[in-house]
Structures are given as structure tokens and as C-alpha cells.
């Protein structure tokens, strides 16, 4: 008679990024071939790689397809109004400097309606990590021209082709004062994850642009193929040029895409400048609110001291 020993059940290999997602919100709304999901995967990989404390990590989005990222990540996540993710995030960072605040939004949200906030946050060097998924179009509303749409592209509001000059976003944010600027495409998953992880270790305004397909509205309308064709295009036409002057990073309809890390410099961030100035002007009278931890909870607030910050 043989004794059967129950083997210890081997857990099914789960998706390593699943703990970072709100599985109860799946399926997501993104189209087949869309690149936003890929960027979220890279973001999750960066969280694993950087071993960042998830408890103090907050993610803020604006409106649009990328704006929906806030709804799918298992973090303190805020889906704000159109264009205003950056000022919302600025307020969070100021009220609690111990938070790590990520802004995750699209090109239209960040550079058109939110363009003013983008340049001012870069100027102030607010310690925010901005991930800008650039699909070169307004996707959520049906494929209208964005400030990033390259010349001659056809969109629903430029049926005869775009003729407005487009924003070169890395150039814009570098000029405004960002301390870290990189660009990748959704083909460059390893590099993108590494860049995001690197930005977590950088204090100040970091900006990572991710060129991403919108097969439904941009690629299809411009006869650029489907999601897979776009991956091939990104693979063939991307050129990694670290340190390339950002003035050379303009995009065209089907030309070269320069990717890489273009800016990595040090400049005191807004919070440090604020404190230094207050200490200088007020001396001992200055109450460092972030060390005080005085007002995070009301006196009847339910949170324990250790869970406040």
C-alpha cells in the first residue's frame, strides 16, 4: 500500500503587475492596439524596479484616454478635470511634501488645455513625475487635431490636413525648466520602464513623453496601418540619441522619431526653494509644516499617527 502525499499546490504564475492594478475595474476602455496599456505596464515595472513606497505614491490624471489611467492603478489616484492634473498635483505636493506625486495624462490634456500649467510647474520645478502619453491626437473625443498633431495629418477637424505647426514637447519643457526629460515609444518598453524608475530618483520636475499609437483614429485615418504596423514603424524609424538637443526632436507624419534621455540636470525644486527662503527670511520663526505634521488630520481624525504620512 502506498501512501499518497498531497503535493503542495503550486500557485499559478500571476501577472507580476497585477498587484498594481484595480483588477475589479477590468476590462479597461482602451482599444485594441492602443499603447496606453503598454505604458501602464512599464509604469508598474518601474514601481517594481524602483521599490518605491506605494503607500506614499499618488497618481493624478486629467481627462482623455490617458486620463483614465488613474482609474486603473491601485494607488491613491485622482481623476481630475481637463488640463488640471498638474495644478492639482502641485497642491498635493505642497500640502504633503512626503508624497511622491505622479501626473499621468495625454498630450492634449497636458499641452493644450493644460499647457499653461505645464510650463509653470516646470518653471517652479515642482517635484512631480509627469508621464505624457502622446498619441498625436484627441482620441477620447473622436480624433481631433491636437497641438502635437504633425503637419499634413488628417484628423476629424482637419479633414484636408493639418497645417498648424506642432509642439515639440521635450523642447518646450526643457526651455521651461524641467530637470529630467526623456522620450520613448511604446515599442521601447524596457527603456521606458527604466526612465520612469530613474525619474523617481530625481527631485524636481521630470517629464517623460511616450509616443503611442491610436490605431482607431490616428493611424487608421492617416492610412498608417494598425497597432502592429505602428510597432514596426517605431522599431524601424526610432533612433536613440541620448543628450540630443531637444530643438531637434520635432515629429513628422512618418519620419524619424528620436528617442532617449535628453535632459538630466540638477536644480533645487520648489519645496526646497520655499523652505530655504523661509528659513532665510524668518529664521526660527518659520514653522516647517512638513515636519510639524500638525494639520494632516483633524484632532478627531481617525488616522493613527504612523499612517498619516
Amino acid at each position, binding site marked *: 500500500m502506498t501512501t499518497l502525499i498531497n503535493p503542495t499546490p503550486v500557485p499559478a504564475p500571476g501577472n507580476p503587475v497585477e498587484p498594481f492594478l484595480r483588477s475589479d475595474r477590468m476590462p479597461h476602455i482602451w482599444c485594441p492596439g492602443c499603447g496606453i496599456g503598454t505604458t501602464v505596464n512599464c509604469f508598474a515595472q518601474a514601481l517594481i524596479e524602483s521599490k518605491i513606497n506605494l*503607500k506614499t505614491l499618488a497618481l493624478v490624471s486629467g481627462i482623455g484616454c490617458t486620463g483614465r489611467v488613474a482609474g486603473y492603478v491601485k494607488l491613491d489616484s485622482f481623476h481630475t478635470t481637463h488640463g*488640471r492634473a498638474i*495644478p492639482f498635483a502641485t497642491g498635493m505636493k*505642497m500640502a*504633503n511634501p*512626503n508624497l511622491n506625486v505622479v501626473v499621468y495624462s495625454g498630450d492634449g490634456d497636458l499641452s493644450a488645455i493644460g499647457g499653461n500649467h505645464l510650463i509653470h510647474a516646470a518653471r517652479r520645478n515642482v517635484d512631480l513625475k509627469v508621464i505624457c502619453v502622446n498619441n498625436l491626437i484627441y482620441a477620447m473625443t473622436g480624433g481631433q487635431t491636437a497641438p502635437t498633431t504633425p503637419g499634413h495629418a488628417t484628423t476629424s477637424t482637419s479633414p484636408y490636413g493639418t497645417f498648424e505647426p506642432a509642439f515639440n514637447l521635450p523642447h518646450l519643457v526643457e526651455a521651461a525648466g524641467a530637470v529630467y526629460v526623456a522620450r520613448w515609444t511604446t515599442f521601447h518598453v524596457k527603456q521606458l520602464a527604466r526612465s520612469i524608475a530613474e525619474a523617481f530618483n530625481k527631485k524636481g520636475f521630470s517629464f517623460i513623453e511616450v509616443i503611442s499609437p491610436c490605431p482607431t483614429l490616428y493611424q487608421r485615418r492617416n492610412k498608417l496601418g494598425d497597432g502592429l504596423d505602428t510597432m514596426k514603424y517605431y522599431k524601424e524609424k526610432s533612433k536613440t540619441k541620448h543628450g540630443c538637443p531637444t530643438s531637434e526632436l520635432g515629429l513628422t507624419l512618418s519620419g524619424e522619431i528620436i528617442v532617449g534621455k535628453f535632459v538630466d540636470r540638477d536644480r533645487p525644486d520648489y519645496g526646497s526653494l520655499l523652505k530655504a527662503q523661509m528659513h532665510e527670511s524668518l529664521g526660527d520663526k*518659520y514653522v516647517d509644516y512638513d515636519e510639524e505634521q500638525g494639520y494632516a488630520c483633524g484632532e478627531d*481624525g481617525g488616522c493613527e499617527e504612523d499612517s498619516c504620512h
Partner: protein
Amino acid sequence: MDGDHACCEGALAAGARFAAGYPITPSTEVVERFAQRVPVVGGCFIQMEDELAASIALQGGVWAGAKAFTVTSGPGFSLMMEHIGYAVMTETPCVFVDVQRGGPSTGLPTLPAQADMMQARWGSHGDYEIIALVPNSPQECFDLTIQAFNFSEEFRVPVMFMMDEVVGHMTEKVVIPPADQIEVTPRKHTHKSVEDYLAYGTNGDMVPEMVHAGEGYKFHVTGLTHDERGYPNMTPKVQHKLVNRLVDKIRSAEDRICLYEEDSTDDADVVVVSYGITSRVAQRAIDMARADGLRVGKLRLITAWPFPAKKIKELATHVKAFVMPELNLGQMVRELERAAGGKAKTLLVPHAGGSVHQPEEILAAIQEAVR
């Protein structure tokens, strides 16, 4: 101390330690004082690039744990409408101070009006309720700013603090009581564990409990129609439940929220209904009318929104007429008329702004009303 400075002190006393602003006359003195005062009590101020940014930065501050507010005047208030809606939808407790000046558009930057009263109530899109308080003195700028913060925390609603240029720049004695005598409503923070907490769960109470970023709850906040978990759910059923609750949490507490000052209304033929700076001119007109032997009562609105319709309804059963002076061409008077329901006449004493009324104009209306 002037009203603008008193408002700032009220905010500090209420526990506000973060403000985001953008300069605009005649409100700027509030944040100028805040910028000077807050670093020594543990907090910070940021001057944003515009009012759109200021009105959302303050809400980021609230979700990070601060009590926060912003200050503006008409043109800036117009830009802030987007985020009054966001605060309503996400139930972000915060205070918007509007030191009213003449409009429309750039209008009269340095002169008074009360012409943003309807905008305070209806300026953002969609169906909602907010609370609006109207001070008529620097002392009230202090006291009622605290009240505004307390209401905002209790009901998790943006509170509009509707000053005007005269109240803002008027200097009077302001008594600031010792801190232990000031009642401050703490944030309605949850006591629940991460597992049991639902960001927009209400448990029968119409105001959900709050948590802050960084506390480990991993919660989600959105301006989209959302369910009790805070997750987007764009169905008529969830919309119905959510929007009705947002409205009902204020409407069901109207009796407590509607503050007013009432004098000699019992045997009055005419009741003068006024608010803000106009109530002080109205007082002079009431005194003059009483000296002439007229039976005139006074109802001064301290809470403009929700409108004290119940009180007006009750008065309308035994007074002949209401007289309402406003520094606009007829805004709150529409509410007065609606509440009076035809049972008593309503007479508006309009004024397009730029100065306050002359008491004689209000007196003439009282005399006409008793006839």
C-alpha cells in the same frame, strides 16, 4: 482690521494651512496676509498661474490632508466655476472666497456689487447644492469664515464666502477670541480599516467619511459619476443615486445651515430682506421708517444659499410686503418672490453696483410697500 484681513484670520483660526490664489482686486489682501502669516503657523501659500490652477491646487491640498481655500473676485470666480463643480462631485471640503465687484466682465475692479450671487449658486454646470455665506462686517468676515470652513468639513461641500468690495476694505474693530473658544469642525476622517473603507460609502449618513493620500487606503477620486467605491459608473441609476444624495445632504440640513438675523417681524407690515453690505444701508432705512411710525421688520440673510425659503414662507402669511435692496438688478429677489408664493408683495430696490444704495431709495420702497 479690514474685512479682507479678518477673513484671512478667520481662515487661519479655522485651521486653513494651505491657500492657492491669483491676484485680483479687491480680494488680494486676503492672500497677501495669508502669505505673510502662514509660514509662522505651519503651512504654505502658492500663487498659481491663473484661477483655474488656484481653484484645483487647493483641492489637491485638501486630499493631501490640509484645510484649504482660495480667494478671488468676479472675473476669477468665473474661471473657478469648473472646480466648484469638481469639489461638489468629489465632495472636497474647501472654501471659495469671492470679494464681489461690479461686472459683467472686468467691470468695476475697485467698486462693490453683489452681482455674483446667482453665479455662486448655479455657475458650474450640472445639478448641485452649495452653501453660501454673506458677511456684512469685518467681524463677520472673521466669524463666518470659520463657519464656512466648519460647514465645508461637516457636509463635504465647497462653501462660497460672498464678500463685497466695501465689506472687504472696511476697517472696524474685530474681536478674535482665544483659540480654545473657537469651535472648529475637524475633518470627517474615517475610523475604518483599509479593508472596510468605501470612499463614497455613506452608511445611512449622507456625508461619506474621508481619507487622505498617503495613508494606505489606495482610494480613487473622480469627477465622473461614481459608485460607492469611487469607481466611474455612468449609468442613470448611479447618477440618480449620487446626484440626489449630493443635493439632499444639503437640503435636508437647511434648517441648520440657514442663518439669518431677524428683528421685529412679528407685527411688521413690511419686512426688509437684505444681505451683506446692503443690509447696513437697509438698517438706516428701517430706522428712518420706524421713526415715521411704520411697522418695519428686518430679515438679514447670513446664509444666502440654501435660501431660507421656509422662513420667507412663514413671514409671507402675515406681512403685506417684502422689500429687497440688492447691489444687482435682481438676483436673490427671484428666490424671495418664489418663496413668498404670491402671498406677499415683493419690491426690489435694484442698484447696478459701484457704490452702495442711498438709505432714501430703500425708504421710498418701504413707504410704497405699506401703501
